[in-house]
């Protein structure tokens, strides 16, 4: 695949933005400035980035409890995200949602979700709507290895396959569902093979290789756009942090320090950096500049968020029903 430099740099920038955004969030959570639950995506950035790079602005995604990466990769506004994490009035959800419910319908982000696999049927419905409206949009549906064992997985893939809907099911196999290793929750080794149960296409990719993810994404998105139905992609990857911020003392009950460190060595960002440098796409100076730009964008987002007031208590009563 021939990709132009600008595009490659954009991939890099997105991954790095996700990483830095979450490092910031981690810090804010540790200092109790973020009040709610926080599930970080650090180490898995290549999946969201590669996948969303194959999407158009008017395509849809549905996300998970670990959703910041998907949102940023689909073009989400980090100021509005940060404001939401801090529970502020101008946050994406006016402070009503927090990390697990960030959505931006104008960007096709159908929402993070606090319930595992709950986005799967919702994605299918968006795809059905596309088909009924005669559009050529597609939907990318992110879910985890753990999520693949929910009934919703089966019902959704069956219906999407039956109706040949334009959905790409993206299994982010980070090998654990909280503390349960995939081998202890999933009776099949390679989840993408479950495609055969629905007579659909699918494949497995290295989820730490953003170009591999992008390539698989591009192909399946094109197929979906051509009306050839859903796909199941499995991206093997790893989460560096605990399941949620706060798990700390339990991390080593279910995985070893060594295993974590091995995966940190396979950092998708470092790895792509090397590709960019080796191929002369960007220089070290260029990388430094990107880092600075991201830091400055983040800084602005932080300022926006922190200067933004909290909602009024009574605002809790708004936004439940739409009223003309």
């Amino acid at each position, binding site marked *: 695949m021939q990709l132009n430099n600008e595009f490659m740099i954009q991939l890099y920038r997105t991954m790095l933005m996700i990483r830095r955004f979450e490092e910031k969030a981690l810090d804010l959570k540790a200092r109790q400035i973020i009040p709610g639950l926080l599930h970080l995506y650090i180490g898995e950035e290549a999946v969201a980035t590669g996948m969303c790079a194959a999407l158009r602005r008017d395509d849809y995604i549905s996300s998970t409890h670990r959703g910041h990466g998907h949102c940023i990769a689909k073009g989400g506004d980090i100021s509005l995200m940060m404001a939401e994490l801090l529970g502020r009035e101008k946050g994406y959800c006016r402070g009503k949602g927090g990390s697990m419910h960030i959505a931006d*319908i104008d960007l096709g982000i159908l929402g993070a979700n606090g319930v595992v696999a709950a986005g799967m049927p919702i994605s299918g419905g968006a*795809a059905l709507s596309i088909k009924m409206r005669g559009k050529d949009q597609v939907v990318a549906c992110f879910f985890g290895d753990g999520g693949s064992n929910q009934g919703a997985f089966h019902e959704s893939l069956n219906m999407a396959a*039956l109706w040949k809907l334009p959905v790409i099911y993206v299994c982010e196999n980070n090998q654990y569902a909280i503390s349960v290793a995939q081998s202890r929750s999933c009776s099949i080794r390679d989840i993408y093979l479950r495609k055969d149960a629905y007579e659909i296409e699918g494949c497995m990719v290295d989820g730490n290789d953003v170009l591999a993810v992008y390539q698989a994404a591009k192909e399946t998105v094109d197929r979906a756009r051509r009306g050839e139905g859903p796909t199941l992609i499995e991206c093997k990857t790893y989460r560096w942090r605990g399941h949620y911020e706060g798990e700390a003392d339990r991390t080593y009950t279910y995985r070893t320090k060594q295993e974590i460190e091995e995966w940190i060595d396979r950092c998708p960002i470092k790895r792509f950096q090397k590709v960019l440098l080796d191929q002369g796409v960007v220089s070290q100076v260029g990388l430094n500049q990107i880092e600075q730009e991201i830091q400055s964008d983040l800084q602005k987002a932080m300022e926006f968020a922190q200067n933004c007031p909290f909602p009024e208590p009574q605002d809790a009563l708004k936004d439940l*029903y*739409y009223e*003309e």
Partner: protein
Amino acid sequence: MREISFSTALVEALKEEMRRDERVFVLGEDVGRFGMIYVAKPELWKEFGDDRVRDTPISENAIIGFALGAAITGMRPVADIMFCDLLTLAMEQIVNQVAKVRYMFGGKIKVPLVICTSLGGLRFAAAQHSQHLEAWFSHVPGLKVVIPSTPYDAKGLLKTAIRDDNPVIFFEHQQLMPTTGPVPEEEYLIPFGKADIKREGKDITVISYSLMVHKVLKAANELAQQGIETEVIDLRTLNPLDKEAILKSVEKTGRLLIVHQACTTGGFGAEIAAIVAENGFDLLTAPIHRLGALDVPVPYSPVLENFVIPNEQKIAERILSIVSQ
């Protein structure tokens, strides 16, 4: 005025709305050529075809989830769940997603989605096909709850539901399907949150909805011959709830009985009783009574079912015992 059946009225509502707005479509099990929806034969499917009267696999959670996904991306789905007993399979999507997405997203989307489901069972359908679960949904902020008792109301309320930009759950009693009543040819809508006073009276207020309204009316008519004047209120929608109508009636009669087919404990009757005990306490001259099904699963044998579910006679007895206290 012409008389049509409850199920015909519902099909008319769907037809009119589907003709009016091409974003409206129906999905569910056997809704198409079999015409399970509203026991309607293939009528709807013949006019609108597989695409807009869409048979699904037996996947209730996905039916609702797909409907939700469609609703927030430009369509106006009507999702049919064959019996309310099967809503149990879709509670995750209904309660955590459908009811909450708009709020969780800060009011930035609309969810024009109607969930239709039947309840109450044909007769002798036993424990898994006879439930009345409407009370659960009244406890879920974000859902409107509609539960009509006549063809007229069914049609007008379903049309309102389909045009609403919020999720609505619409309960149809299976035993009402063949019942008939006057329905005008002209188009009309019925607003949510307006109870219908079916019968005026000064001795006691009886509040009810769905099939039980008819049983209450029969009991009331009989008691009228003994000089007892019962005011009968059909709530029609549980959320929004017409508290004003309830309190106004209690103000007049001083006595209140609530009748529903759901089992008594934890039923919607409790909510009404609680509202009146808080806001209409001084209006009451007697204890508030509830008459629901007995607190057991609905048994199969006719002898047993008849014993468990309220009927005219039991309603009349209860009214009598209250007014003669």
